């Protein structure tokens, strides 16, 4: 009954399909390249070490993930920068 009233009031419903799609994309990429999370984390640390030599990275805001779209796997990373080192 509560559900009926909510529906009549036009309450927004959940969008679980976007959760499904997102989870699936992550799953398929990891199935395909067979890279365990620990290795992924190690790669992230090593890449950030190199980047940090040149720019000051906001480390808590870094994102690092594998995406698959149209059959292609891509490593997608966002590395927000605080400032460029003076003598980069």
């Amino acid at each position, binding site marked *: 009954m509560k559900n*009926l009233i909510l*529906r*009549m009031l036009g309450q927004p*419903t*959940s*969008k*679980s*399909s*976007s959760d*499904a*799609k997102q*989870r*699936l*994309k992550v*799953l*398929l990429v990891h*199935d395909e390249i067979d890279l365990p999370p620990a290795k992924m984390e190690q790669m992230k640390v090593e890449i950030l070490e190199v980047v940090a030599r040149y720019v000051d990275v906001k480390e808590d805001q870094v994102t690092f993930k594998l995406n*698959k*779209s*149209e*059959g292609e796997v891509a490593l997608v990373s966002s590395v927000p920068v605080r400032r460029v080192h003076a003598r980069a």
Partner: protein
Amino acid sequence: MSECIVITSGKGGVGKTTTSANLAVALARTGHSVVCVDADIGLRNLDVILGLENRIVYDIVNVIEGECRLKQALIKDKRTKGLALLPAAQTRDKNAVTPDDMKRLVEDLKQEFDYVLIDCPAGIEQGFRNSVAGADRALIVTTPEVSAIRDADRIIGLVEAHELPEPELILNRYRPGMVSRGDMMSREDILEILAIPLIGIVPDHEDIITSANRGYPVAFDDESVVGAAFRRIARRVTGEAVPIPELHDETGFWSTFKKWMGIKSVQEMA
């Protein structure tokens, strides 16, 4: 030119057998001769979906082991011209048959029929290898769920590894109402992920259950929207250009009213 088509999915319970049975019926109704092979040895079910379970005398393993002639094991469907079933064995397992056995069997069947449909068992082991061995083409059945699509992706890779051409996708148990509410992945979402051509969409519908209850495939039923979906897929399989229709949007006062009242409406995929 005869063609052998394997219907596969990786995951169980997504509708491979129902799809095989209905495509076989629909292809036969377009005037082609069709044999439907149940490759799920040990868990035979295609006979039940087709309603032919009471007529089995010999099975695929009897044929392969030379205990009967191929013609003796084939069950002719009396409801339509040109349709036959080669049943699986129920008391044996997948190892009773090898990929080479299947290749020979398919070659023999192709002498007699325009289409040889193979209903592949779930999984990626021996049963799958047997099913793809003689196939010229693969159809992948999936449902709009994370687990089914994950397995479909894996199977697509395996099909291509067996040097079959790019497989085509049948999207089963589609619910347009849930898609428009954002609670089911859309055909676009799924095609973006699997990146293979779509050959048809089958709506989720009660007719599937009632037709399975009766052993009377819904593709025989000219009134059913699901039957029509299978008949369109069959025409696409034969190479006819039949567009895959867009779904009706479930909007407007009456459909909303009916939803409140609990009346289920599966949109005709016009």
